[in-house]
């Protein structure tokens, strides 16, 4: 079983025995991240939990579930609920559907009455979200409304405000607006999912009458997959980079044999237009922040020629890295991960050739490998759907960081080139003309900070994951010392790349979180952050700083970090944890010598 395989296949799992065995295998994986998820249902949710667990295990999350009683989603939130209080959810999922709309317009409702009913229904949910935020301070995933199964008004049901179809559409607009305005509210678009699966599969009357299940049982795996993609994104684990083959993937034919004139790409034939459409879809992914890479068995010169085809939507500059050679693809993919400095589990590989897919699956099991087929097609016309429905690039919000990500990584390549010109590393650092901005957590950065705590694995001393409300709470607590760092250099802005969070007790500061993005390794940014920390600690009358290193399989990089800063070892625990101490006094002199510092 390869990681994320379930996301890459179009068919879904239903047989209980198969599901059970898969789960058993998947729960034996190392490094599963535990998440406490409360599922509050407006219909029977057992099978949803069953399938969701499978998909979450498949993306490295071990869910601990709380399940509400049947159709008690409203009551269990609004009234005293010690069981849920004690559960302390990291996330609440409200599985409500159109079936849960208690009051809908009737045929004699006036326009004003419809407005009132709409407002009442909406505010019921809004009350729920407010209550969850106040009680649990965690994110909420909320279904919007699926199209009703039947339409007493026929086509008019969708346009007349008294029709339930029209009513759910209006509600969906309200939900979308709420989600734009509330950081902790994520809408799970079952309206779209139901259309994708087909309404006749979504609304299965016998699943409803016999078991009170919505969606129908056969559609449940698709719901679970879609939901798991969103949950994965919410916890900062979504894939970041798409690695693409060229021949018969980005165009029809073999560029080495057929030449630029011979490959199929453009508008001339059905096949050519399908390849162009695929390129345009990928271009849209790139524009929203997905990094693109090429991994192709080709002469590099030919690869470039193909990408420069007059109809190409993806000229070479769209790719952060192009690996076109005759080495095994698994080697090239490892090299791509290394070059852009991200983990292999953030990569998604797309190749039309089953043999290549198999090699990558076997050699790099962490990398997701798309099966480029659907139930409707097994040629290029299936490509977009296969990628689109994988949910691997699901995102809960488009941040400024996302839009700039490609620039960062391209700039990294430029920096690497510059480094070659210097024999002295210090000279190279100076030539980068770096400026750091350091400050206390500010509202506009909280989302990015949360994202970093969830996806930073290498330079992360404690690897404690935080939710947005937890980060918010830390900034409001006067005993917490919080610092962020942004770094700019002559090639561009690296954005917010480092975070420190510490708890002050009297004259002691214990660092609970210290992380830095791999984007800026070996730039002395960590020293700059420490200088700022010591300065701030001094101002607050802190006499000693305690640092803890908690080892994980991925953070060996910082195992002796505190030692290099000048901390002394206090304690070595059995689980490998080490505790360090640093005295704060007036003799401290700044350790960073290459970065100019500005305080926000």
């Amino acid at each position, binding site marked *: 079983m390869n990681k994320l395989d379930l996301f890459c296949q179009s068919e879904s799992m*239903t*047989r*209980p*025995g198969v599901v*059970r065995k898969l789960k058993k295998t998947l729960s034996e994986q190392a490094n599963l991240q535990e998440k406490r998820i409360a599922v509050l249902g407006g219909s029977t949710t*057992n*099978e949803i939990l*069953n399938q969701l667990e499978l998909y979450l295990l498949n993306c490295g999350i071990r869910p601990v579930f709380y399940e509400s009683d049947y159709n008690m989603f409203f009551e269990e939130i609004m009234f005293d609920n010690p069981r849920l209080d004690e559960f302390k959810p990291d996330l609440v999922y409200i599985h409500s559907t159109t079936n849960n709309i208690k009051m809908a317009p009737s045929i004699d409702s006036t326009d004003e009455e419809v407005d009132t009913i709409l407002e009442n229904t909406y505010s019921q949910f809004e009350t729920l979200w407010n209550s969850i935020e106040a009680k649990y301070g965690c994110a909420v995933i909320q279904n919007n409304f699926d199209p009703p199964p039947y339409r007493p008004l026929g086509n008019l049901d969708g346009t007349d405000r008294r029709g339930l179809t029209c009513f759910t559409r209006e509600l969906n607009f309200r939900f979308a607006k709420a989600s734009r305005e509330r950081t902790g509210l994520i809408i799970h678009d079952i309206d779209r999912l139901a259309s994708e699966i087909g309404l006749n599969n979504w609304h299965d009357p*016998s699943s409803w*009458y*016999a*078991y009170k*299940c919505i969606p129908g*049982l*056969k559609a449940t795996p698709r719901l679970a997959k879609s939901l798991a993609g969103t949950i994965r994104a919410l916890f900062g684990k979504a894939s970041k980079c798409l690695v693409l083959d060229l021949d018969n993937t980005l165009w029809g034919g073999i560029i080495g044999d057929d030449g630029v004139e011979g490959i199929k790409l453009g508008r001339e034939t059905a096949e050519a237009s399908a390849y162009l459409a695929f390129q345009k879809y990928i271009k849209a992914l790139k524009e929203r922040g997905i990094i693109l890479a090429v991994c192709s068995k080709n002469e590099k010169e030919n690869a470039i020629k193909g990408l420069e085809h007059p109809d190409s939507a993806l000229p070479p500059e769209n790719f952060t890295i192009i690996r076109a050679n005759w080495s095994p693809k698994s080697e090239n993919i490892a090299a791509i991960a290394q070059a852009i400095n991200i983990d292999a589990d953030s990569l998604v590989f797309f190749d039309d050739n089953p043999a290549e897919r198999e090699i990558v699956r076997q050699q790099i099991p962490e990398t997701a490998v798309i099966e480029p087929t659907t139930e409707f097609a097994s040629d290029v016309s299936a490509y977009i759907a296969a990628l689109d429905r994988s949910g691997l690039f699901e995102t809960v919000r488009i941040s400024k960081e996302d839009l700039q990500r490609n620039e960062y990584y391209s700039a990294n390549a430029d920096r690497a080139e510059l480094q070659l010109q210097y024999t002295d590393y210090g000279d190279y650092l100076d030539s980068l003309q770096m400026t750091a901005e350091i400050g206390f957590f500010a509202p506009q950065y909280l989302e990015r900070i949360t994202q970093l705590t969830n996806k930073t694995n290498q330079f992360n001393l404690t690897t404690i994951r935080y939710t947005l409300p937890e980060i918010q709470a830390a900034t409001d607590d006067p005993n917490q010392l919080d610092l962020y760092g942004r770094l700019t250099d002559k090639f561009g802005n690296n954005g917010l790349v480092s975070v420190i969070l510490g708890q002050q007790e009297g004259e002691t500061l214990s660092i609970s979180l210290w992380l830095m993005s791999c984007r800026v390794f070996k730039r002395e940014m960590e020293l700059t952050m420490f200088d700022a920390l010591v300065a701030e600690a001094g101002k607050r009358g802190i006499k000693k700083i305690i640092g803890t290193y908690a080892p994980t399989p991925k953070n060996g990089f910082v195992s002796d970090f505190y030692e290099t800063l000048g901390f002394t070892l206090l304690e070595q625990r059995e689980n490998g944890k080490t505790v360090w101490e640093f005295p704060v006094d007036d003799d401290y002199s700044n350790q960073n010598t290459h970065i100019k510092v500005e305080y926000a």
Partner: protein
Amino acid sequence: MHKDQIFQTVQEIIQDALDLENQPLTLASSAKDIERWDSVANIGIIMSIEQEFGFKFDLSELDTMNTVGDIVEAIEKHM
């Protein structure tokens, strides 16, 4: 398809769904006798049978199927 064959297939599906290894069932076996065969497991069993035999049970059948024998009989009607 013979009644025996249907029974064999149903038995396999139930054993697989309930993780009963090779514990044999009879036509008289029912959810009442088998602890793991709760309402949640039952959904999986019914779904797997429908998938395997390629039809859907009538709602009236879902309401009245109590034993393995009832299930086999209902399947026979749909074959």
